[in-house]
């Protein structure tokens, strides 16, 4: 008797599992393409925001390079972030470097920066952060355009010792009530520029006559 009811109940549950799995599979197959497309578009949008269109003619997403393990540390990275290579007519013109600032007010701040061949920044964006809403979150382009003050800057402009927030004697604004967040971002960008200066050869040396796009 008991055995019978167990059999019956497990059949019912099994039936449910099959039906719900079917519904999920159906929805998934309906949306999979669209989701992949949206993800790609979002990623491209983030990249193209900091890379002026006249600097590249390739598909940034498919032209990436792994970052060697010993260099990841210099950028504060801990995962499988990649460097995106921008090329124009087959010549590398700029790269987009991922980086993470770990000394923010609340957790890691993920950033990307576009850097031209000559070391000039084309733009910096925050990808994700958990800074205090209303204070530290002004590093987000949606809240404030502070992050655009990096545009056009390089290691020599301003001079190295001026690469800091105003409170530390530098020339970058901090926010009212929030110094830690912009300080973390400014320092991280500066370190990344230093990294770029040291390792730029590996991106621009073998100035690729061969067509771009195949270096996944």
């Amino acid at each position, binding site marked *: 008797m008991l055995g019978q*009811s167990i059999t*019956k*109940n497990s059949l*019912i*549950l099994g039936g*449910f*599992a099959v039906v*719900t*799995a079917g*519904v*999920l599979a159906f*929805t*998934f197959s309906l*949306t999979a393409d*669209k*989701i992949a497309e*949206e*993800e790609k*578009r*979002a990623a491209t949008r983030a990249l193209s925001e900091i890379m002026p269109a006249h600097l590249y003619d390739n598909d940034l997403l498919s032209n990436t390079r792994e970052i060697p393990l010993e260099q990841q540390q210099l950028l504060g990275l801990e995962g499988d972030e990649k460097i995106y290579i921008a090329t124009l007519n087959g010549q590398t013109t700029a790269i987009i470097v991922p980086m993470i600032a770990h000394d923010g007010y609340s957790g890691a701040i993920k950033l990307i920066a576009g850097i031209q061949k000559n070391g000039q920044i084309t733009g910096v964006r925050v990808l994700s952060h958990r800074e*205090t*809403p*209303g*204070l530290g979150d002004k590093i987000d382009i*949606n809240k404030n355009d502070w992050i655009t003050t990096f545009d056009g800057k390089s290691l020599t402009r301003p001079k190295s010792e001026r690469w800091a927030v105003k409170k530390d004697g530098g020339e970058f604004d901090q926010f009212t009530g929030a110094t830690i967040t912009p300080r973390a971002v400014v320092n991280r960008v500066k370190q990344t520029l230093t990294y770029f200066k040291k390792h730029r050869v590996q991106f621009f040396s073998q100035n690729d006559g061969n067509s771009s796009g195949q270096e996944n």
Partner: protein
Amino acid sequence: MNEYKEISFNGLWKNNPALVQLLGLCPLLAVSGSVVNALGLGLATLLVLVGSNISVSLIRNAVSDAVKLPAFVMIIASFTTCTELLMQAFTYELYQILGIFIPLIVTNCAILGRADAFACKNKLIPSILDGFAMGLGFMLVLVAIGAIREILGTGIIFGNMHLLFGEAARSWQISLFGENYKGFLIAILPPGAFLVTGLLIAVKNIIDAHMKKRAAAKSKSPATRSKRVRTTDNTA
């Protein structure tokens, strides 16, 4: 007809999932920082609630009591995942903002509560209406909290609505206090969610008390209903 009116009133006001039953507080407090977030999660919850009520009502005679709950959870989980996929496909940026709270709809007690307390004992039409009324009641509270927090915290309302309604909605944003409004920070921070929710509950209780007094004065007979309207009808 009266029954339908009762069901709607129950979900929207008398037994409002957010203000009276205090169910689903986790998403309620976490994503009510702005109208667009609140509306996005509210709509998703509404969709799942109606869907789960429909299916639970349809299969209510086919499942035995022993496997009732796992079956309901399976239904709710699959509706939630479908909603998640759809949001990812059509409102990708909003999906990114709401993040973990979309899959967490599964754990919103309001949904399992309605499946167990109402849909599995009632016919299809009342169950749909109940899911709709409860979901709408939840969404309205969520949006109200979102609006209050957004206004106090940032001085604007309907910001970023394009995440949900497309580019045309970008211009819906209204700045209420001008450019120099500094923002009442605590409203956006987590404590603000508790404060605003508490205030809304208080306001509801005041209105209830007021209406009861009026009703009592009208009929001249003393009210026989229980003093607190905090019932959760037939939930266990």
